[in-house]
């Protein structure tokens, strides 16, 4: 006698409709990419604007040397001017400041001696600065030897050249106009600063 056995296997049956369609399963991973850009202000080295030199020898490193400070016919100050540029950037709202250490060109030697009357011993000059649609003027009038400065606030980021123009008028001294200048080496130190605000 041959007996047939019914073997029941219970399986979770997939509905017919599921067999008929293309099932797609996906998995996703998400990553972030992070970074930051800090505020940066940078002032590049000075370069001369072409054709701007009047009675200046030029630029030696960061030193500007006047060719002839004295007019040999008047013995007083000879006019001079020059334009200097600084490739610069500031990625913040910032303040542009120009500072004269001596408020004019003063003798760098024999400072303790009393100058003779009628002679000039300091030379005033003007510094004109243009940067990011702002302009700045510093009159280093040489009346008192001190630090003199001027500044302007610049909204937003800026990029380009800081344009500095120095002007020395003919015959200008810290004494009377066209006074003869005492012999000596004259100098001043100018600082230009971009300061994030």
């Amino acid at each position, binding site marked *: 006698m041959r007996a047939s056995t019914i073997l029941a296997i219970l399986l979770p049956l997939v509905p017919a409709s599921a067999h008929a369609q293309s*099932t797609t*399963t996906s998995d996703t*991973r998400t990553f972030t990419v992070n*970074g930051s850009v800090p505020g*940066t202000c940078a002032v590049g080295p000075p370069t001369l604007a072409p054709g701007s030199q009047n009675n200046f020898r030029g630029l030696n490193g960061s030193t500007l040397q006047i060719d002839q400070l004295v007019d040999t016919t008047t013995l007083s100050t000879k006019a001079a001017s020059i334009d200097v540029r600084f490739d610069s950037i500031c990625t913040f709202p910032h303040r542009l400041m120009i500072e004269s250490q001596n408020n004019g060109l003063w003798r760098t030697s024999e400072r303790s001696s009393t100058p003779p009357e009628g002679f000039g011993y300091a030379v005033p000059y003007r510094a004109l600065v243009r940067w990011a649609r702002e302009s700045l003027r510093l009159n280093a009038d040489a009346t008192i030897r001190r630090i003199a400065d001027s500044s302007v606030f610049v909204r937003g980021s800026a990029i380009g050249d800081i344009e500095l123009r120095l002007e020395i008028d003919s015959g200008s001294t810290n004494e009377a106009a066209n006074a003869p200048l005492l012999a000596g080496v004259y100098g001043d130190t100018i600082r230009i600063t971009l300061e994030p605000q």
Partner: protein
Amino acid sequence: MNLLSLALAAALIAGGATAASAQTTAEAGPFPVTGNVPNLCAAGTLTGGGTAFDLGILSNESTGRMRRDLEATPKILTAAYCSTASTITIEATPLESVNNTNAPPPGFSRRIDYSATASGWTNVAAVYDTGSTSNPAATQSRATAFQGDITVSIGTFSTNGGDILRLVADPAYQGIVTVTLAATT
């Protein structure tokens, strides 16, 4: 009526016993046995740190332009698998300043483009370039089931608008990279 039904049932039982005793073969079946393995994909377990590609400071502090040495440690999705044919797709959004959303002034940019790559799953890696308007290589297909690791990396950074541009300051620049593993039949 009920009495008649019972009698008929008894007759049928008796009849069955008679057939067995006559060596008659009875057969049932075949009975099909079926099961189902669904299409399934899992993108694996992340190793290599958290979910962030941290690039740190993006700009050269002396020039304000994008650093040329930007890099980030790749992320590894280990033991990813798909039980059938599959596609891997990578997408990315550019790195953009989060807080400083104004239009950048002339000479500046607030966006860095880069390429995001998912490799190891297909012969040709899936690549998405945020600076490109078309990214046909962002999706790659695999014809067979597979398991393995997926390496997710970013690189080829460039300032949107040109590398001559400076980046506007912002403490947070952010982009998103998304990797999707999908089963197909």
